[in-house]
């Protein structure tokens, strides 16, 4: 079963950011809460965690 990783609600009004770096690659096994991608918002670079454990497809 695949799970979509969504940009979490990181504060009022911040709904977009630029994807700057993937921290995992296809085939990697990851844990729940492991950071998978870095997104740059206006204020900071934010590490987005995976909501589930599994394998990156």
């Amino acid at each position, binding site marked *: 079963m695949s799970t979509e990783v969504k*940009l*979490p*609600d*990181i*504060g*009022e*009004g*911040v709904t977009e950011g*630029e994807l700057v770096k993937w921290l995992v690659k296809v085939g990697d096994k990851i844990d729940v*809460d492991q*950071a998978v991608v*870095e*997104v*740059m*918002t*206006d*204020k*900071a*670079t*934010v*590490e*987005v*965690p995976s*909501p589930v454990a599994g394998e990156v497809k």
Partner: protein
Amino acid sequence: MAYQRQPKPSWIKVKAPGGEEYTRIKDMLGQLKLATVCQEARCPNMAECWGGGTATFMLMGEVCTRGCRFCSVKTGNPKGAIDSDEPQKVGYAISQMGLDYIVLTSVDRDDLPDQGAGHFAQTVEVIKRHQPELIVEVLTPDFWGNMGVVGRLVDSKPDVFAHNIETVERLQKRVRDPRANYAQSMSVLDFAKKRHPERYTKTSIMLGLGEEHDEIDQCLRDLREIDCDVVTFGQYLQPTKLKLRVDKFYTPEEFAYWQKRAEEMGFLYVASGPLVRSSYRAGEFFMKGVIERKRQQEVNELSDRSLLDEIYETRMQK
């Protein structure tokens, strides 16, 4: 030209908020229609603080009558509207969050006869009545430097009275709303300290707005002159594209320099780091220790040595 976000140095990096504790607090605040400065100012530390059960409440609504050029809180005129149940709601939310140190701040309410000082003070009093052991820090507007209303708030006996100078003297006009200024903010801190010398005053300086070394130094000397106890330094981060751009990203080493420099000048406590915010947890842990010991001391009456002497001595031994 399309708006380009400034690239961030590697140390301006945080974890996205999440987890049960964060979600629980967020839902409860939403239900009670309470605002936090964490959300309104788009604070990058929200995940860490909320995850640990800390939040800074923003009283009197989400609309500020002032328009500072560093701040993303909405500017407008609420025309005297105020939720008179808010002190009780905040008290309830705090009791549900299981905190032992809270920070209350507010928007500026130039539309109210007392600029909201009475409402702010009432909130502190409600909390103190129901949870006397809770340490309360207030982070306040300048109230136009009207000491009558500042006194009303100071007399509600918050443990820490914080008011932010924000930046060096030269940049005040550029950075803050024209109704705010350096001398006025200094006078508010001075008044609060003189009124209750046994309580603590605190201020914050944002770095990265174009200030020079000697200007920061002068600001620190001015703060010591009025006996301000605590100072924090953090990196200014542009919250939206309409706000001031970052002039410079200070390195962690530069923050360490300012930490040491301020400590040498005799501040009781200094927090300095790229992601330090005026109500950042790191500072609160220290302040909590200081205040609890002071309270214990008052109860015991065993020692007539001042707390400051004790702290300086501990520091010398290190």
